[in-house]
């Protein structure tokens, strides 16, 4: 299926080239932020609030300062002197760096202890005495919306409620009208729970301020180093840290998944302390701090409705969302999209009427939410549409696969305009679902299920046919803090024909060092092995917005391709000069230009590059370098057809995922092996929220599962044997026809799993289960229906 234009020696697109980064990872030589040690480095630990909502009456650091090695205790009052006690969020809200008066969630930063060792810092932390006056927190977002709810953000002048924003899209009047007259209307309320990225490497940094040169180097676990540099300059410019004085270095990252996009208070405190004491300061979270205080993901309460005909034609959808943001809206969305790209929720189906509305609310919980392996709320959107589609099929008694086939947008109808205004670029949804059904043996499974049902056994088959929206994004709509969401590539080819290329993105396991090299190899014919890729150092890499939301291939990957094409154009000129023919007489094949009709007369790319430094045409600029900042004309729309089979133990509720087939369309594939690895990983991060993970708070705002003891990250045992495959419809507007893949499986798989579970339970009248669907929930549902 995948055709390679280049030889294995060049290893352009389509080759399963082994990852260049693996050698260091497999020998313990990966270089992560906690591996950085600098002379004289101090360590920071953070005192955190045991209460979800409390006034701070006093902070007593006397005993802490007596702990050997402790050099300072920093409070909000200390930062206030420099106006650093608050910082802006990406969504133009405000967040405390350290509190001066009030703590707003359990585990919030209260003050920081600085010491000469990690141990002394922790002992110092234990010795700080904080006096609190606890207040009754507001935890339930619906109660927070009550008119008489206490106003949590009283720091905001004139704030009279806990409402953050209202957002709507679509045609309300038209939608209501369709619903009023529709033959069939189904409605479902669902909660997409608060979860955590839980990367195995926690967040951390080493802030290294050099007083003599007034220069800050910030080593930091960040997915977006350039944007962070700008943010630091915006927040700390007034104390002299202007942007040219700041270098952000993002070393190897031990998993990001969106959780390493935000600026956490710990980073700012570390910078402030380093700035004040003139020494490097290391701050590394422990696991509980990571789970309890870092930005959460999801937490959308959604009511979704679908209207259609009895025959199974989908006519309209309606969505109402309540977004629980914790005490501040610290989402990591593009500025104009406070619900991210939730408006993709109309799905893969051909209808023209939809209306969506969302409200956001403050509660006494940690702020967020980040786009956890998701292009900004697409996971929530896909869950809603794929669940309600199944509900609709169940309601009218139609097979959910057939219902989808009947309603899919047809491949010849692309580009297709969605009811909420997106232009889907390409896809072949029928082919995807057909392939998935064949791979899993859908018809046979339905027969088996019918037999099992006669015996009272519970088996379910669930489908999810989703459309993603990734690659943010076109500059007319997409920016973060005003900076347009382009991304960049800079290629330098050395005289000997080997290259280095630098990017504004930052890999966290996606394999950029390999795939970017393959893109350039594809375009220039230089072996990928000879192309060094660098990211993460703002002093050397071109400006870019970073890696999240499956945007690296759609944006920086495109930039690599176009920068390489600029070089190929130059190469053509040089080749024409060297071969003494006109440019039009030359033909390109990967790695060389030859004269049309005289293939023996040719110049390899290496010869051409050498000439660019040693014998370039007069009047032409010497050297062989190009940079491109790629502003995508549209987003890309990867899609997938996933089918899941589950067996359920009726007595215990235990769920076994027997099979899972994932057919993805991510357009042209750069490295099939890496793509498959990404799909495996994404599916594992899909079964996680579907069956295991959720951050749970009690009514006092105490987190009940803030360690890996109770926050249940799947292991090799829980992870099913994923079966993967592809259909390929190239993105028509992307230079190499790629669409991005990292997030599709995380986004698309939870509804397939839940649909399978609900399908298994449907003989007892069960039509919905909120995720995570646990054995206990299954048992309870069966019990409530009198099935056991």
């Amino acid at each position, binding site marked *: 299926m995948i055709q390679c234009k280049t030889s294995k020696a060049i290893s352009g697109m389509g080759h399963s080239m082994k990852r260049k980064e693996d050698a260091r990872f497999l020998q313990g030589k990966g270089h992560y932020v906690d591996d950085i040690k600098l002379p004289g480095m101090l360590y920071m630990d953070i005192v955190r609030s045991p209460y979800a909502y409390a006034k701070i009456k006093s902070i007593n650091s006397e005993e802490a300062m007596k702990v050997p090695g402790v050099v300072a205790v920093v409070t909000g009052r200390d930062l206030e002197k420099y106006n650093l006690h608050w910082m802006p969020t990406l969504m133009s809200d405000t967040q405390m760096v350290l509190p001066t008066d009030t703590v707003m969630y359990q585990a919030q930063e209260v003050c920081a202890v600085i010491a000469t060792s*990690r*141990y002394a810092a*922790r*002992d110092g932390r*234990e010795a700080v005495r904080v006096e609190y006056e606890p207040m009754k927190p507001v935890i339930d977002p619906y109660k927070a919306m009550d008119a008489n709810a206490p106003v949590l953000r009283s720091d905001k002048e004139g704030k009279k409620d806990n409402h953050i924003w209202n957002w709507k899209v679509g045609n309300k009047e038209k939608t209501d009208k369709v619903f009023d007259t529709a033959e069939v209307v189904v409605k479902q309320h669902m909660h997409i729970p608060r979860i955590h990225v839980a990367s195995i490497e926690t967040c951390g940094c080493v802030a290294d301020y050099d007083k003599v040169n007034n220069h800050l180097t910030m080593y930091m676990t960040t997915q977006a180093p350039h944007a962070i540099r700008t943010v630091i300059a915006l927040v700390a410019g007034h104390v002299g840290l202007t942007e040219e004085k700041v270098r952000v270095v993002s070393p190897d990252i031990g998993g990001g998944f969106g959780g390493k996009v935000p600026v956490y208070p710990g980073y700012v405190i570390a910078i402030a302390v380093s700035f004040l004491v003139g020494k490097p300061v290391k701050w590394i979270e*422990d*696991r*509980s701090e990571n789970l309890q205080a870092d930005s959460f993901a999801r937490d959308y309460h959604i009511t979704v409705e679908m209207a259609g005909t009895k025959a199974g034609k989908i006519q309209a959808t309606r969505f109402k969302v309540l977004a629980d943001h914790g005490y501040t809206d610290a989402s990591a969305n593009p500025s104009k999209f406070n619900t991210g790209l939730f408006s993709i929720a109309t799905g893969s189906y051909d209808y023209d009427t939809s209306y969506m509305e969302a409200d956001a609310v403050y509660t006494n919980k940690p702020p967020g939410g980040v786009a956890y392996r998701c292009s900004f709320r697409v996971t929530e959107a896909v869950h809603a549409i794929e669940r309600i589609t199944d509900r609709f099929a169940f309601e009218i008694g139609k097979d959910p696969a057939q219902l989808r086939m009947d309603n899919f947008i047809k491949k010849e109808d692309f580009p297709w305009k969605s009811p909420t205004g997106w232009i889907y670029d390409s896809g072949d949804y029928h082919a995807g679902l057909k392939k998935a059904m064949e791979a899993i043996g859908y018809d046979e499974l339905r027969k088996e299920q019918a037999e099992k049902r006669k015996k009272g056994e519970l088996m379910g088959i669930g489908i999810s046919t989703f459309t993603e929206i990734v690659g943010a994004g076109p500059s007319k709509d997409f920016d973060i803090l005003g900076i347009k969401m382009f991304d960049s590539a800079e290629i330098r080819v050395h005289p000997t024909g080997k290259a280095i290329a630098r990017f504004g993105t930052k890999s966290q396991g996606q394999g950029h060092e390999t795939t970017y090299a393959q893109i350039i190899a594809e375009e220039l014919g230089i072996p990928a092995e000879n192309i060094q890729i660098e990211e993460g150092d703002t002093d050397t890499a071109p400006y870019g917005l970073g890696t999240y939301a499956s945007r690296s291939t759609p944006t920086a990957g495109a930039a690599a391709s176009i920068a390489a094409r600029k070089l190929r154009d130059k190469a053509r000129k040089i080749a024409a000069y060297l071969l003494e023919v006109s440019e039009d007489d030359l033909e390109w094949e990967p790695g060389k230009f030859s004269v049309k009709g005289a293939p023996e007369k040719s110049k390899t790319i290496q010869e051409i590059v050498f000439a660019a430094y040693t014998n370039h045409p007069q009047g032409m600029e010497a050297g062989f370098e190009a940079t491109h900042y790629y502003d995508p004309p549209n987003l890309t729309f990867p899609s997938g057809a996933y089918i899941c089979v589950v067996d359920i133990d009726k*007595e*215990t509720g*235990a769920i076994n995922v027997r099979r899972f087939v994932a057919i993805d369309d991510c357009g042209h594939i750069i490295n099939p092996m890496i793509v498959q690895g990404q799909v495996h990983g994404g599916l594992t991060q899909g079964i996680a929220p579907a069956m*295991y993970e959720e951050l*749970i708070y009690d009514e006092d705002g105490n987190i*009940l*599962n803030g*360690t890996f003891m*109770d926050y*249940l990250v*799947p*292991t090799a*045992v*829980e992870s099913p044997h994923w079966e993967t495959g592809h259909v390929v419809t190239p993105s028509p507007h992307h230079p190499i026809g790629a669409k991005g893949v990292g997030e599709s499986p995380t986004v698309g798989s939870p509804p397939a799993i839940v649909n399978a579970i609900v399908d298994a339970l449907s003989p007892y009248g069960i039509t919905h289960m909120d995720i995570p669907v*646990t*054995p*206990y929930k299954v*048992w*309870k549902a069966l*019990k409530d229906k009198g099935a056991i």
Partner: protein
Amino acid sequence: MIAQSFQYESPRTIKEAIELLQKYGDDAKILSGGHSLIPMMKLRFASPEYIIDINRIPGLSYIKEEGGMLKIGALTREAEIEHSDLLKKHFPIFGDVTKLIADPQVRNMGTIGGNLAHGDAANDHPAVMLALNATVIAAGPDGERAIPIDEFFFGFYQTALQPDEILTEIQIPVSQHGTGSAYHKLERKVGDYATAGVAVHLTLDKNNTCTSIGIGLTNVNPTPLRAARSEQALFGKELTEEAIAEAAKYASEDCSPSSDLRGSEEYKRAMVAVLVKRMIHKAAERAKA
């Protein structure tokens, strides 16, 4: 995730260890595998000033049959129990239970003595020991004493061990022909503590009559629990579905689980009934094999 500093002691004999316990009293904790103690110390739920590491005391790690008794040394690692041929032959229940305890790295360090001495109703060995009618041997300043398992578990995280005593051995009567045992627990994911766990050990005669029965329950009670009424419902009776159902019902009534993240009280009681039924069947199958 950093524990408070402590003074480390590494006695070479049981006598030395007991002397240290007498000297330091409540400020000391015994370290065997460390997988219960160290996490509590790191989360600063426990901050002992003295750690008495008993791993250097020779002769506390063994599995042997002696005088009709199976004897397991307190320092025997879970991994050794998991792979012991002697246990596989006589007590397949140990194969059931050890592979459900935490994960392999923990089992490489964790000891059976530590698992019991921690007094945690969520640990798995206590229920098994109740089912097997084990005896715990403790060494103290006045020598050794034998503590029947039914007298071993007191309150929450409390055992009959005195502050100056060390658990040294577990003794289990070797069973006669026609005996089978089985353990299972429901867990939210691999390595989790039990939502509910059940250990069954029974002997059947030719007439399918239950001539011995032990049933222990994991994590459905403040302390490890013997399902005494369930045992009575089966002892001396033919092992019929009705008798099994009755035993299951009693166990679910007599335990005292609390609702938590693993499920409601009602769910846990129901799971106890399901598991009692399943484990009796599995033990009976093994007894007949």
